[in-house]
C-alpha cells in the first residue's frame, strides 16, 4: 500500500509542459514542435515531444526514427530516444502501427482512451520541457489532452498560423478554445511568412503576410515572430535532420531560434 501511495506520476519529473496548437491544418505545428525541441536541446535542455495527432502522426519521421518501436518498462512505456545523447525523446502513435500506411480510423472515444494512456503511461523521466504536438481543430484530441494535463499545470500554448485570412480565421477559434479551457497563450507564430527566391532574392508573399501579427495584436497575446518559407527547412524535415545544428545560415533559422529564446526568457523572468 505504501509503495502505491508514494508512486510518482510519470509526469512528475517534467518541469514545463507546453502545447502547440492551431485551429488550422498544415500551418506547421509539427514543424514548430520539432524545431523548438531542437533549439531547446541546443540550449542544453532535455526535451520530450508527445504527438497526439492520431490520424496523421508527423513527428517520428521529422527525427528519422519512424521505424523505431516502443518498449515497456516497470513504470510504463519507454519513449523513443532520438539519439545516443537521450536529450530528445518522443511518443507517437506512429511508433505503434504495424505498417506505416495503416489508417487509424477511430471515432472519438477510442482516440480519447489512447490519449489518456499517452499522458499517464509514458515514462518520460526528468525533462525540462514536454512539448505536446496536436492535430488541427478543437475536438476530442484537444479536449482530452487539456483535461488530462490539467493536474500538471501546463505552461501554456503556442499557436501557429500562416499569414492568410483563411488560416487566421481558424486560429481565432483556437484562441477561444484556450480561453474556455483556461490555457495560457504563450504567443502566436506566423509561419510560411514570405518566400525569398534563392536565385534572385525577390521576396514573394505566397500565403500573404501579416495576418498572424495582426491577430496577436487584436487578441492581446505575444507575437513570437514570422518564420519564412525555407526549402532547406522542408528538406531537413523530410530527411529527419537537425536543422538547428546543420543549417544556421538558412533563412528560417533566426526566427526559429528566436521563438525558443522567448520561451526560455519568459520562464527565467517568471513572466509565466
Amino acid at each position, binding site marked *: 500500500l505504501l509503495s502505491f501511495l508514494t508512486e510518482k506520476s510519470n509526469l512528475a519529473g517534467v518541469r514545463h509542459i507546453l502545447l502547440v496548437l492551431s485551429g488550422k491544418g498544415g500551418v506547421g505545428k509539427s514543424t514548430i514542435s520539432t524545431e523548438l525541441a531542437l533549439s531547446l536541446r541546443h540550449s542544453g535542455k532535455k526535451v520530450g515531444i508527445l504527438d497526439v495527432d492520431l490520424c496523421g502522426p508527423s513527428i517520428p*519521421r521529422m527525427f528519422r526514427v519512424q521505424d523505431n518501436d516502443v518498449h515497456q518498462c516497470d513504470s510504463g512505456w519507454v519513449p523513443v530516444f532520438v539519439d545516443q545523447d537521450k536529450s530528445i525523446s518522443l511518443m507517437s502513435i506512429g511508433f505503434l502501427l*504495424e505498417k506505416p500506411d495503416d489508417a487509424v480510423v477511430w*471515432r472519438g472515444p477510442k482516440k480519447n482512451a489512447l490519449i489518456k494512456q499517452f499522458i499517464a503511461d509514458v515514462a518520460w523521466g526528468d525533462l525540462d520541457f514536454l512539448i505536446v504536438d496536436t492535430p488541427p481543430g478543437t475536438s476530442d484530441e484537444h479536449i482530452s489532452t487539456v483535461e488530462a494535463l490539467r493536474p500538471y499545470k501546463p505552461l501554456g500554448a503556442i499557436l501557429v498560423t500562416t499569414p492568410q485570412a*483563411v488560416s487566421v480565421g481558424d486560429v481565432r477559434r483556437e*484562441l477561444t478554445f484556450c480561453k474556455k479551457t483556461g490555457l495560457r497563450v504563450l504567443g502566436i507564430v506566423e509561419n510560411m511568412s514570405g518566400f525569398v527566391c534563392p536565385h534572385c532574392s525577390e521576396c514573394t508573399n505566397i500565403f500573404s503576410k501579416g495576418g498572424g501579427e495582426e491577430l496577436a495584436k487584436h487578441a492581446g497575446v505575444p507575437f513570437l515572430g514570422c518564420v519564412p518559407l525555407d526549402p532547406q527547412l522542408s528538406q531537413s524535415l523530410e530527411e529527419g535532420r537537425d536543422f538547428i545544428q546543420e543549417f544556421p545560415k538558412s533563412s528560417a533559422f533566426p526566427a526559429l531560434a528566436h521563438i525558443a529564446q522567448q520561451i526560455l526568457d519568459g520562464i527565467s523572468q517568471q513572466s509565466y
Partner: protein
Amino acid sequence: AAALQLSLSVAECPGTSSAQAGRAAACQGCPNQRLCAGGAAAAPDPGEAAELREWLRAVKHAVLVLSGKGGVGKSTFSAILAHGLAADEAKQVALLDIDICGPSIPKMMGLEGEQVHQSGSGWSPVYVEENLGVMSVGFLLSSPDDAVIWRGPKKNGLIKQFLRDVDWGEIDYLIVDTPPGTSDEHLSVVQYLSAAHLDGAVIITTPQEVSLQDVRKEINFCHKVKLPVIGVVENMSGFICPKCKNESQIFPPTTGGAEKMCQNLNVSLLGKVPLDPQIGKSCDKGQSFLAEAPESPATLSYKSIIQRIQEYCDQHQFQEEKII
C-alpha cells in the same frame, strides 16, 4: 522486452448503429464497448434513414474531397471545383462543408457573415450563384471567434442534419469538403452517403513525404470503406519566381511526389497545380480564382483536373445506366 504494438487493431469502429457495434475486434478496449454491445447506442430511426435515402437518391453525383493531411488545399480545391462545375448554368451544384471545427468554405466563397434561414421545407442553403448553393457550420456561428468545441458524436449529429434538413433541391453535383484525418466526420459522411451515387473521392496532397505519408493512410481508408478513388491532385507543386522565372521546390518531392505514390498505389494522378500567390488572395477575398486569374498556369491545371473529374462522373453514370 517485446516491442509494444497497438493491442487495438487499426480496424475501424464499426459504427454505433451497426449490427457489429460493441462486438467487433476493434471494439476491445473502447470505452463505449458495453454501451454499444447492449444496443444502447443510437439505433437509426427507420423513418429518418428513409428520408435521408430519398433525397440522396436524387443527387446525380457526389464527390468527397479528402486528404489525410491538413493544409494541402482541400477547401481551396472544393471551392474551385464548385465554381468550375457551376460554370455550366444548366447544372445545379451543392457544396457541403463538413469541417465542423475549421469551416473555411464561407470565407472562400465570399459568404462570410451569411446566416442560414429556416422554412417549412427545411434549412436553406446559402447561394453564391443561382445554381451554386453552400452549407457550412460557419453560417451557424454568430461571431468569427466562436469555437465549436465538440466531441465526435455531436459533430456526427450536425453532419446528419446537414444532409437531412437542408432543402437542397435537385442536385447534379454534391461536393463534400472534409477536415483532415480519418475519423468521425469521414466515417459518418461515408455511411450517410451510402444511399447516394457516391462517385468517389478526390484526394489532395502536396509533394513532400510528410504529406504523402498521411495521404497513403487516407487512400487505405477509402479502400477499407469501399470508396472509389477518382484520383489524386498534387497541390503546391513547385513555385515559379515572378521576377526571375526560376522554379523552386518549396515542398520538395523527396520520395517522388504524388506521381510515384499514385504509381505504387495504382490510383490516377489527376494533375499537379503550382503555387500561385493569387490563389491564397482569391480565397481570402472570397473570389473565384478561375475568374480572377484565367491565364495562370494553376488555372489551366485546375481546369484540366475538373474536366477529368467530370468525365469520370459521366462514365460512371453511363455505366450505371447501361446496367439498368
